[in-house]
């Protein structure tokens, strides 16, 4: 498989930097029949010309189940009562821009983010919607089938693409999921090498730690090194079949983690003071967001935070106003402010969204059902133009009034901001070409146009 870290490097390492093995890997990827070394070097030298990417990392706060954005960021105060719901809009730091009353913290940082109110697609399922969102490809399975993770066994997720294209820039893995694996966050045909490192532990727990990160210190470096050398000596490469082959890849990743002191520091939330931890909220989403900031500061490229319980079909308002919205409001606003205070916001893209929105009309059980035709998405940092509201939905919030934004548009924009070529094509094991994003266009208004 082609390793594009090189292709995106800012300096040209020259021919000596290429091992034979790497060239074999490039050849075997089938990237382009006839790709020769000079041609490859030429590609490498021209990579990155055009725009200078500003986002080095992305924190993706995923509100799984479908957030009720009509109650949060796109209120309809003039709609009939069964549509507008019980919440009042409040003004924000940006004159003329309003959000729901339970998003008062986000209102205060409205100048640092931009709301896109026209995200729209037509897959109303959870597992299929997650698949569509994270891969930009329609699910080939029925919704609800196979909810064991990951469900994207063919197409790579956005995080896996970032991992492949940008690679690590520090001691932590380039792609991390916390506190659970994202339903469709898998690597697809990119393979285990681009699977997320999943921190199987919730940072909101008092005894949170990433287990087994370090070898036994009592052994000392010499013996730990000897063990790894011995293992390499008795286990030749090859014979990588099925699950056992996958395990080998995980071993390589685990070794990378162990040998990194920055990783240990990045995962250590106890280094944060109580004030900061409180500001993010002592919730799963809050503490995961804080951890995400630490991971990004240590070089992680893509952190996917999985936050559930947004599928509010029944009696939605009590749980929305008491838990879901405040948790999201605190986590998002604290994360954006914190990144800004540390001077990291410019190079860190923050996205908060779910796989769908909710029905404008409140149902008979006082809940809202799935509504993928209109969802508001929050963006901050990473080179987007802040303080804007992009697009609008109609009077009842049923659909965008103009120019709906597709999943492919969002993915393409994320990749653009990170300096990734969305038209780059890889071949599936069966030889079918699959571009990083099929279709879509960059959301110019998010970039300032």
């Amino acid at each position: 498989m082609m390793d594009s870290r090189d292709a995106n490097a800012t300096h040209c390492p020259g021919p000596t930097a290429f091992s034979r093995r790497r060239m074999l890997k490039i050849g075997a990827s089938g990237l382009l029949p006839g790709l020769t070394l000079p041609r490859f070097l030429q590609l490498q030298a021209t990579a990155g010309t055009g725009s200078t990417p500003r986002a080095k990392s992305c924190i993706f706060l995923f509100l799984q189940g479908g957030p009720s954005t009509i109650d949060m960021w796109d209120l309809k105060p003039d709609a009939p009562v069964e549509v507008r719901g019980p919440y009042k809009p409040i003004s924000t730091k940006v004159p003329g821009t309003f959000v729901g009353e339970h998003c008062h913290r986000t209102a205060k940082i409205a100048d640092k983010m931009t709301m896109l109110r026209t995200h729209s697609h037509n897959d109303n399922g959870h597992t299929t919607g997650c698949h569509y969102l994270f891969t930009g490809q329609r699910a080939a399975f029925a919704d609800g089938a196979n909810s064991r993770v990951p469900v994207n066994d063919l197409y790579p997720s956005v995080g896996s693409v970032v991992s492949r294209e940008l690679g690590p820039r520090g001691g932590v893995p380039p792609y991390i999921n916390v506190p659970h694996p994202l339903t469709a966050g898998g690597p697809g045909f990119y393979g285990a090498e681009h699977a997320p490192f999943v921190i199987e532990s919730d940072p909101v727990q008092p005894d949170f730690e990433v287990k087994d990160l370090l070898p036994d210190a009592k052994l000392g470096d010499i013996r730990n090194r000897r063990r790894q050398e011995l293992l390499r000596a008795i286990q030749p490469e090859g014979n990588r079949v099925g699950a056992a082959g996958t395990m080998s890849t995980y071993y390589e990743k685990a070794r990378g983690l162990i040998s990194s002191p920055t990783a240990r520091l990045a995962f250590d939330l106890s280094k944060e003071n109580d004030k900061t931890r409180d500001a993010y909220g002592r919730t799963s989403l809050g503490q995961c967001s804080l951890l995400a900031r630490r991971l990004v500061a240590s070089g992680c490229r893509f952190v996917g935070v999985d936050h559930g319980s947004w599928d509010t079909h029944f009696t939605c308002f009590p749980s929305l106003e008491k838990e879901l919205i405040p948790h999201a409001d605190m986590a998002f606003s604290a994360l954006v402010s914190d990144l800004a205070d540390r001077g990291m916001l410019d190079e860190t893209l923050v996205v908060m969204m779910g796989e769908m929105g909710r029905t404008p009309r409140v149902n008979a059980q006082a809940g809202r059902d799935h509504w993928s035709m209109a969802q508001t998405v929050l963006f901050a940092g990473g080179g987007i133009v802040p303080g804007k509201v992009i697009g609008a939905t109609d009077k009842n919030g049923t659909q965008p009034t103009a120019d709906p934004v597709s999943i492919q548009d969002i993915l393409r924009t994320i990749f653009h901001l990170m300096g990734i070529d969305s038209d780059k094509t890889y071949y599936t094991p069966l030889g079918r070409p699959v571009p990083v994003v099929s279709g879509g266009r960059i959301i110019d208004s998010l970039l300032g146009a």
Partner: protein
Amino acid sequence: MIQLAFFRRQHCAMVMVLLLACSPSAFCQISVSPASIELDGPESTVQLAVWKPLPGGRVLELTRMARYQIIDGNAAGIDANGLVQPKADGNATLEISHAGETRRVPVVVKGVKHPQPVSFATQVVPILTKSGCNSGGCHGKAEGQNGFKLTVFGYDAAADHQAIVVEGRGRRVSTGAPMSSLLLLKGTAAVPHGGGRKIVEGSHQYKLVARWLAEGARFDDAVAGETVRLEVEPATSRMAPGESRQLRVVSVGADGRRRCVTTEAEFDTNAPNVAGADRKGLLRAGDVPGEAAVLVRYMNQVAVCRVTLPGSNSGFPRPPEVNFIDTLAWNKLSGLGLAPAGLADDSTYMRRVYLDTIGTLPTAAEARAFLLDKTPEKRALLADALFRRPEYADYRALLWSDLLRVDRDALKAQGSVAMARWLRHAFATNMPYDKFARAIITARGGISGDSPASFYKVLDNSESMTRSVSQLFLGVRIECAQCHHHPSEKWGQDDYVALAGFFTGVGKKVLPDGSEAIVAGPAVDLKHPRTKVLVPARPLGGAPVAADLPDRREALADWMLHPSNPYFARAAANRIWAHYFGHGLVEPIDDLRATNPAVNEELLDALAGHLRDVKYDLIAFTKSIVASRLYQLAAAADAGDERNFSRSMPRTLPAEVLLDAVCQVTGVPEKFSGWPVGARAIQLWDNRMPSYFLQVFGRPVRATVCACERGADPSISQALHLMNSPEIQARIRSRKGVAARLAASSLPPDAIVDELYLSCLARFPTPMERAAMVRIFGDGQEARRSAAEDALWAIINTREFVYNH
């Protein structure tokens, strides 16, 4: 340039095909189906298929290459894909030409000027189904979508008609202005629609729905037009990588009428890498050799086209045959062109049969003795001995505790212990499987007594009992039919409630001592959820049972265990097979149906027959499996076949087995809270025993009867745990452990390395491995100890140790 090579290979294959096709022989003639075409109604279509037979059972697909012309009359038209559509009543002749050959097909068109009224049930509902309107993710889900609720997959046309025409104050249809009906406006996304555009304006589906609306949006009970059978043509297809083939789907009505429904039918496949079909019914082969079942679904009926994609090596010499398993396996593999791997060596066989049969590694002493044994039949003798060991019963009881949901949180300790003890006893005494199944199905009595009664404790109503028993013992996932007709089976809701009627007499009772018991009294029939008519209890595809039995479950067990039962023995054979080969002949292992065939049907049938022949003696049956050469094939070393058993695939060890293996090779047992020292993880009845190791390696929570709950996916966390965890470090470094003991012995370094290899991998090290290991041994006790520890650590972290090969 693997891809390039691949395409070149393809290209050569294509050239050869063309050469063959052009040789002057009988194979040269093109074939066309159907021989004559009858179109009835303005929206009817007939899909044509054109091909040329090739030697070896393959065909050259021509439907999209042939030239079409209507030469006589103007009644019909045809597009480039070979889809014939009516234009006006009358006759026409269709001429098909390709490479100088021509065929003519007469076309008769009627019912265009005076069409039969559109049938809601047989024409409109299939459109809603193929467009996904009534899918489970949309209006078909139990609560509907945005107030509009259809029956999932359109199983209940009357309810769908009601929903479309009457509910919502009739606002969804306008018979006066059909094009303004909300149904069409939403379906074409002319007004906002959560599902987006599902029907294209002006398409044949659109016209059909529009005409139905214009005709008054009537409901017809349409018994005459009801599809009673579906035929797919071809029913089997032998293909080469990358080839395509046009399918034709014909619905046969209750009145015997045959209609082409290729455009209306839905297509699905069980092996997308081997073959699949698109919406138009164009079959496409992938490039992974094997077999695929392409499922065709229309109006509650299903049909299957079985596709074979042979590999390149069909002429391999047939290996020896130990028993019927090998005979049938080599038959299948020859047809697939997949040469079986060679015979595994003694070490591989030994480790494999130990781990599969008793969930335990051989010790170094056992391995040494077996490897040096010169007895010719030593493999069979080894297997015989394993089935007599207590770990056999421990391990089988553990795996069945998963399936029977022995969850301490649900059963309390008493219930869990009782079930675990009963299971262990059943396997220790080799209880015949029919007796075993009957005991579980008809269980009653105290849940802490010596019985499997606690199975019914975790199932809280007759329906969950039905679903669990059906999936567990019949391999039929009947739960689909709880809410709707099974999407890929013949079972409907009546079959479901009829089966549930066997369990309505089962109840729970609190005994005077406060413990719980399962009781079984007279049962009652259940109502059909839709029609509210009582459905007499009857087994799947069987006759109703007498209403007044003291315990109907006995009658169900009689039916299941009858030699003619088509499910019971097959499901059992497949389950055992899956355990010994890492995956079933049918996957998922408890989802047996015509539309999900076994990769080797003849073999599964023969195994089911064998299980009956040995009177459900599980040990006798399993011995036949492990004796077969197929079971003893060498492990896969590179990419290739993973489904057809042409070689042994590495399989994940259950969490408990791996933990026991680590304990055994380090010589330091795990201490489970409340258990005596030396207790092994495979003996634990307590699935909630705190253990990070068991959690991270995928111990199931036993929430369902599905074997799929046991996680088999590797993760970084597993790698980190094996390399770094303090728990495993402590074992390796223990003063009482194997490494310390070997270091303190008088053995020279190479003998220590031999011992470690034998205990971990049941083999001697290769010279290269031995040299690498011996090199780290220094002089002095401390150096020997650290070297032994590091050597042990390295072996535990190899793929070879962590997997069963």
